[in-house]
């Protein structure tokens, strides 16, 4: 695309009407009646004085002078043309945040305007364009496109459903992909946070518009063990002026008065057995954050069987399990067995039981630390053993991966058995320990139960925020599952440690099926920062071509224009000389 390095020089074009006015004024005639033209008639055309005005020639001279002036102004503006015939390499970074779905007062979304601008840029020049979708992680879309129809096909995969856009990392990927000569175009809805560096070949295009928006920014549904069901909705009014709106929850409407820039939280008690609950707000500039669906919270109780001969230890465990609120000690099918005896082989139709084997034997020793804890394990999350006296038998070795050690003495270890169940071993003698008297033991028990619960078949969290990872635990005998998107697309996913994890790409209810069972996960758009459209704006930054880029990619055309000017001036001189009778 041609460019002008000094477009202000084009202001010289304002002289064109002035020149035309001069010609018009100069060529105006005043009328004078004379007695006779006898004394004005001359056989010889004088070169000086009394020159008959060449009306036919004057427009040509004027046109030549206008052309010279226009070409000089254009040459002064520094015209440059791309240096080579090779295709211009561009890498387009596409903001995938859902805020790109916001529509302006004309009903055009940011994405639509961005696509139109990309098309305008690419059409009319040779290009090789690559597209990188900047969601939570950058993703390169296919191969480089060299025609608009190819680019259009790639852009169909740009869905603008991510909760956030990682533009910085996407730009880094773009530089790697495009190379030093490529022009990187960031297409988004906000201005750059920092001034763009010169000579960076980075263009920033924003197509947003600052608008008020009312959005759900939090939605939680909790279920207690007594069967009660509670719903919390947070509505944010992302605007600079107060407003009112109507909240609809399962058909029931409620008017809300919203202060500027404030949020409101509302709680609802739901009758037991309530199914999916849908809440909505009226449509505004961004509609994707105006509805939420919340599935019933899952009561995550872990069936625990205590097979402890040591009564002291049994009491300690019972108290901790009861206090956790996550354990079921009704003698029903056990998901977790705590034993101080031998590990019993797995049996029964239930999934493999997890086993916590407590070894209380050996010569008692009090370990006071320093304790080394494997913080990467879910079991040790938030666990602190400061000041704890851990009593255990000497000389007892625990097979498996150490989780807690005191020096070189492993106090707790973990192993995954062949059937996929987990075996935890711990050396512990409560009689010589203070562990059970500290918050560490209840925390350990809670972590254990929560960890076990997360592996019970079903969605770990039935309601997740867009951008979070959805997890569905499967029976140990199942290795894969089918994920069905809200739009009906299907995809097979493999399980890892009996859990299928995936990142939903859009809001709605996702279904996962495995072993003839279906589990639902509701995904909702809940991001106050992305829903805030007030910082959105439109503009272009960084398109100025620096000296190095100019030298590298463009060639000056001023010389060609000056040659044309020279030719026109020669023609002008000849015409003027000829109108003067050919005399110098």
């Amino acid at each position, binding site marked *: 695309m041609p460019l002008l390095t000094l477009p202000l020089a084009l202001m010289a074009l304002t002289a064109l009407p002035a020149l035309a006015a001069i010609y018009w004024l*100069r*060529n*105006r*005639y*005043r*009328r*004078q*009646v*004379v*007695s*006779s*033209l*006898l*004394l*004005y*008639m*001359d056989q010889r055309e*004088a070169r*000086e*004085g*009394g*020159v*008959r*005005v060449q*009306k036919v020639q004057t427009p040509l001279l004027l046109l030549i002078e206008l052309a010279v002036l226009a070409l000089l102004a254009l040459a002064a503006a520094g015209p440059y043309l791309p240096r080579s015939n090779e295709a211009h390499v561009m890498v387009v970074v596409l903001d995938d945040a859902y805020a790109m779905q916001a529509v302006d007062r004309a009903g055009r979304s940011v994405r639509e305007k961005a696509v139109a601008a990309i098309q305008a840029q690419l059409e009319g020049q040779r290009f090789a364009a690559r597209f990188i979708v900047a969601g939570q992680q950058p993703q390169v879309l296919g191969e480089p496109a060299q025609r608009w129809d190819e680019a259009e096909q790639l852009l169909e995969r740009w869905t603008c459903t991510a909760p956030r856009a990682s533009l910085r990392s996407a730009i880094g990927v773009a530089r790697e992909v495009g190379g030093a000569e490529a022009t990187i175009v960031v297409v988004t809805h906000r201005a750059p946070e920092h001034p763009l560096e010169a000579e960076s070949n980075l263009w920033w295009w924003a197509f947003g518009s600052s608008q008020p928006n009312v959005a759900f920014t939090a939605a939680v549904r909790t279920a207690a063990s007594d069967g009660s069901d509670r719903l919390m909705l947070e509505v944010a009014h992302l605007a600079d002026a107060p407003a009112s709106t109507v909240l609809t929850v399962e058909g029931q409407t409620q008017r809300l008065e919203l202060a500027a820039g404030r949020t409101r939280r509302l709680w609802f008690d739901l009758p037991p057995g309530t199914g999916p609950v849908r809440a909505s707000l009226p449509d505004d500039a961004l509609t994707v954050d105006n509805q939420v669906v919340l599935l019933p919270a899952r009561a995550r109780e872990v069936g625990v069987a205590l097979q402890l001969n040591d009564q002291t230890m049994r009491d300690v465990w019972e108290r901790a399990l009861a206090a956790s609120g996550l354990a079921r000690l009704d003698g029903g099918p056990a998901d977790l067995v705590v034993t101080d005896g031998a590990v019993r082989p797995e049996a029964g139709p239930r999934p493999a039981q997890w086993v916590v084997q407590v070894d209380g034997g050996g010569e008692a020793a009090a370990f006071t630390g320093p304790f080394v804890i494997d913080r990467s394990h879910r079991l040790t999350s938030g666990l602190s053993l400061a000041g704890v006296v851990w009593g255990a038998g000497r000389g007892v070795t625990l097979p498996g991966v150490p989780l807690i050690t005191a020096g070189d003495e492993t106090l707790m270890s973990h192993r995954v058995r062949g059937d996929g169940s987990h075996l935890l071993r711990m050396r512990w003698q409560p009689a010589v320990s203070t562990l059970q008297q500290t918050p560490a033991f209840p925390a350990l028990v809670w972590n254990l139960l929560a960890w076990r619960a997360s592996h019970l078949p079903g969605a770990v969290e039935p309601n997740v925020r867009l951008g979070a990872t959805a997890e569905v635990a499967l029976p140990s005998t199942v290795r894969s599952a089918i994920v069905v998107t809200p739009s009906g697309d299907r995809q097979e996913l493999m399980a890892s440690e009996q859990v299928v994890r995936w990142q939903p790409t859009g809001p709605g209810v996702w279904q996962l099926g495995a072993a003839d069972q279906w589990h639902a996960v509701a995904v909702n758009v809940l991001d106050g920062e992305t829903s805030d459209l007030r910082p959105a704006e439109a503009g272009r930054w960084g398109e100025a071509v620096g000296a190095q880029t100019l030298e590298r990619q463009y060639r000056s055309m001023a010389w060609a224009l000056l040659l044309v000017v020279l030719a026109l001036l020669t023609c002008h001189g000849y015409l003027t000389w000829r109108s003067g009778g050919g005399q110098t």
Partner: protein
Amino acid sequence: MDEPIRQALQAGEAAGARYALVPPRQAVMGPAGEQLASRVGSSIEFMEHREYRPGDDIRRIDWSAYARTDRLIVRQYRDEVSPHVDLLIDGSRSMALAGSPKAEAAMGVAAALATASSNSGLTCAVWVAGVTLQPIARGREHPGGWPVPAFDGREPLGAVLAASPVPLRRQGVRALVSDLLFAGSPLATLRRLSEGAAQLVVVQVLAEGDLQPPRHGNVRLVDAETGMQRELFIDEPARQRYRQRLEAHEAEWALACRQVGAVMVRLVAERVVAGWPLTELVREQVLRVV
């Protein structure tokens, strides 16, 4: 336009009352009258002697001269005639140049000449050479009563005179009032006018605008008589050349006047109407103060 010309006629008549037309050197012919002609006649005023030729009246022999010279010499006496003036006014459109008092000056000068002619005992006939050569109605009356000519002639004066027979009195005085700004041979025009005339007086009346070229700049010149247009850029060299052409044109007319024995006087219209000075006519001995 009529009113200023009427006023000019009256002013010219008043101005001409102080003057009389100077008789021409040549014999002015006309019916017998009160004027002594320059040719030999039968009046009692002695004119000159000459040798006796057979056939001469013997009563005119100057016997005193014979006694002195022994040669027969006769006396000649001047004849008595009634002289006439034909006044031709150029009736072309250029004589009524817009923005100039040429028409007033021309008519005023003609009125002055007619009045002066009357003061000299000459009869006067006034002609207007417009589209054709036509006598002016009531031309023999005092000039104040003349009708205002139309000044609508588009053809050069020479062509009008050539196209119309010129019923002018022989051996009379002929006076032409014109700006002389027309194409054609001055000599041919003057010869036609001077043929059979005792005297021809050419009074050129020019406006200041005729004397001075247009001012600087682009100008679209329009010929007052033909309507032709010409666009020119006037600068100082152009003005210089105009003056040179005017000078050459007048020189050509002056030469032609000399060749036919005519008297040429140039008057500037603005100066004429300013106070009706006729000093140039007096200087050229066309008029004399009475």
